[in-house]
């Protein structure tokens, strides 16, 4: 065990694996014996953990904060080593407003391709391993996420991952990153594009079993650690400039925004819950309308069949040849059972909003008692 981890540590410090595992170069370098165990060309070692580089953390936070109103999303670059998926770089994708899907998809693909080419030229990792998405108040379930991830799951090594960054959590003082991938059961149902009740039942799908979480770690490389150390160090300021007095302090000052008692976010959270519940009700209304329609059509068809049978029995009793059984499905169009995916996702959203509301309420409670205790002294 110790030998493996040592090899992993060695391997992590070398830039070489990218050339071995990812590059489609015709001449393969011989894999050193010490690393043979940890490099898997065929992607056989299952992923156990996602490791996020410090650079990617800041990049995602910046992009998420700047793209207000639109959801920020981008691609993650890196490679996997001994079951640990190392995310070493990322870049944002341009946001396209809904018009002209075909065109924007092409532009986005072009953007991706040329960005990857450019990054390769400066020795950055250029293999796509997933994508990231910013969210507010924890609700990241939506159709696009699932679609993109389903495409990635087929194309990428290890199926790719999605990293979800919660903007409102970060603003509250707890930078939150989570890594997910689709579960096998969901993927199976998605491939058959069958989300009818029976399919959901056979796959045991609820909103909590669409995605499975992969443990995520944050890592800073030694250079970054050293630099951050210098930044957080307190030292005397530069010579007094002509405008102001001398300053003391580190470039990274401590903040205590987590201790803020303000409950401004709660109203918005409640509004979003109400909105999500409304959406869910509409969707449920649609579903029940459709299922009523199906039931009506089916009843009609059954009536017709029963009538025909009766008639035939009467004819047989009279000694006449029975009428041929007609194809019922051609006479009556029974609509296909509606997909429940949308309502499943909406439920997931409601749950996520509820979860984040419960979280902020419980920390709010703690903070309130803390202030209460403080003010009584």
């Amino acid at each position, binding site marked *: 065990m110790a030998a493996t981890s040592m090899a992993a540590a060695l391997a992590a410090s070398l*830039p070489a694996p990218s050339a071995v595992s990812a590059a489609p170069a015709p001449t393969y370098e011989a894999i050193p014996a010490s690393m043979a165990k940890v490099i898997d060309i065929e992607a056989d070692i299952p992923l156990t953990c996602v490791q996020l580089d*410090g*650079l990617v953390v*800041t*990049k995602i*936070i*910046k992009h998420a*904060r700047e793209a207000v109103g639109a959801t920020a999303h981008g691609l993650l670059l890196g490679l996997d080593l001994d079951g640990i998926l190392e995310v*070493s770089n990322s870049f944002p*994708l*341009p946001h396209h407003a809904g018009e002209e899907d075909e065109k924007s998809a092409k532009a986005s693909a072009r953007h991706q391709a040329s960005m990857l080419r*450019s990054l390769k030229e*400066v020795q*950055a990792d250029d293999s796509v391993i997933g994508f990231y998405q910013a969210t507010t108040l924890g609700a990241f379930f939506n159709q696009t996420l699932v679609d993109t991830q389903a495409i990635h799951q087929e194309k990428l090594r290890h199926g790719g991952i999605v990293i979800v960054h919660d903007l409102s959590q*970060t603003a509250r*003082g707890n930078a*939150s990153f989570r890594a997910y991938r689709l579960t096998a059961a969901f993927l199976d149902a998605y491939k058959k594009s069958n989300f009818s*009740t029976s399919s959901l039942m056979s796959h*045991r799908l*609820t*909103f*909590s079993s669409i995605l499975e979480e992969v*443990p*995520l*770690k*944050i890592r*800073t*490389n030694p*250079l*970054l*650690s050293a*630099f*951050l*150390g210098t*930044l*957080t160090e307190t*030292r005397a300021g530069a010579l007094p*400039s002509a*405008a102001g007095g001398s300053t003391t302090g580190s*470039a*990274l000052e*401590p903040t205590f*925004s*987590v201790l803020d008692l303000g*409950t401004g976010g*709660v109203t918005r959270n*409640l509004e979003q819950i109400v909105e999500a519940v409304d959406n869910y009700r509409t969707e449920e209304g649609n579903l029940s309308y459709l*299922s009523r329609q199906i039931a009506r059509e089916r009843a009609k068809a059954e009536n017709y069949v029963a009538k025909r049978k009766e008639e035939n029995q009467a004819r047989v009793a009279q000694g006449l040849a029975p009428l041929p059984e007609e194809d019922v499905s051609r006479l009556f169009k029974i609509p296909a059972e509606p997909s429940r995916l949308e309502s*499943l996702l909406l*439920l*997931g959203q409601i*749950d996520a909003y*509820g979860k984040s*509301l*419960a979280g902020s*309420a419980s*920390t709010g*409670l*703690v903070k309130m008692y803390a202030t209460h205790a403080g*003010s009584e002294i």
Partner: protein
Amino acid sequence: MPLGPTSSAININGSTVSDPAPGVPRTPTNITIHPVALFSILDHYLRRTDTQDRVIGTLLGTRHDNEVEVRSSFAVLHSETDEQVAVDMDYHRTMYDLHHKVNPKEVIVGWYSTGSNLNTYSALIQNFYSQETGPHQAIHIAVNTGVEEGQEAGVKAYISSPVGVSPKPENCVFVPVPVELRFHDAEKSGLDLLANTANLPSSTSSQPIADLEIIENAVQSVSDMLDRVLAYVRAVLAGEKKGDPAIGRYLMNTLGASTEDLEKGGFNASLQDTLMISYLANLVRAQAEVSSRLALTAAS
């Protein structure tokens, strides 16, 4: 907030000098840099080839009056030999176009290099970037990664001004400009996370962190600070130390905050609100769970 070793340069603040005529771009007197730009530079430095002494790249950002805000950066290919320096301009333009598409607000404001020596090549590159940023002045940020022995890590910013009787591109004076780290308050927690991670021996930390843990740390550090202040006040009262009136004023302002609102029944009211919200949130979650289970039952 200084970002590097102290320098002996005097910075004359241009705002007090009479404003130049409108239309003429002002000389930058203050430069701020976003952590993303800084970390990208460090990453680029890590990924350089063995033959490269230093790496250079383009800085993107925004300008307001005489302040330049560097918001991101990207690496640019270049090669330096004893005879010549070459910058891949095509690459620079392609990358700029790609970045511009995602974030149209950010424009080229200058360039960065690692290491802190400024030479003739620096002047030449500066000249090239001045054409890109015209009519504004290009800024240059030198990041010392502190890897070489005897050098301290830090960031320095410069603007250039021509020198000599007949200005030549390879001659210029780099004038230091103060530089600060600047980011939005909402991004602070991300940096805290990284700073905490960097302090751990393994340089890795697992996510997610519970809210309560962070609150606990914050309360702990506030309590430490109070202890320090208390020790100081006691020392002053006992006559061991001479009191500083400025500190006294600060303490008055900070600790004299009124908590009356909380005491007058405000506490109970907000307590009820918070409990109500907590109840509601759990109710909503329970309902969602129930309906997702109900969807799994057969209709018949």
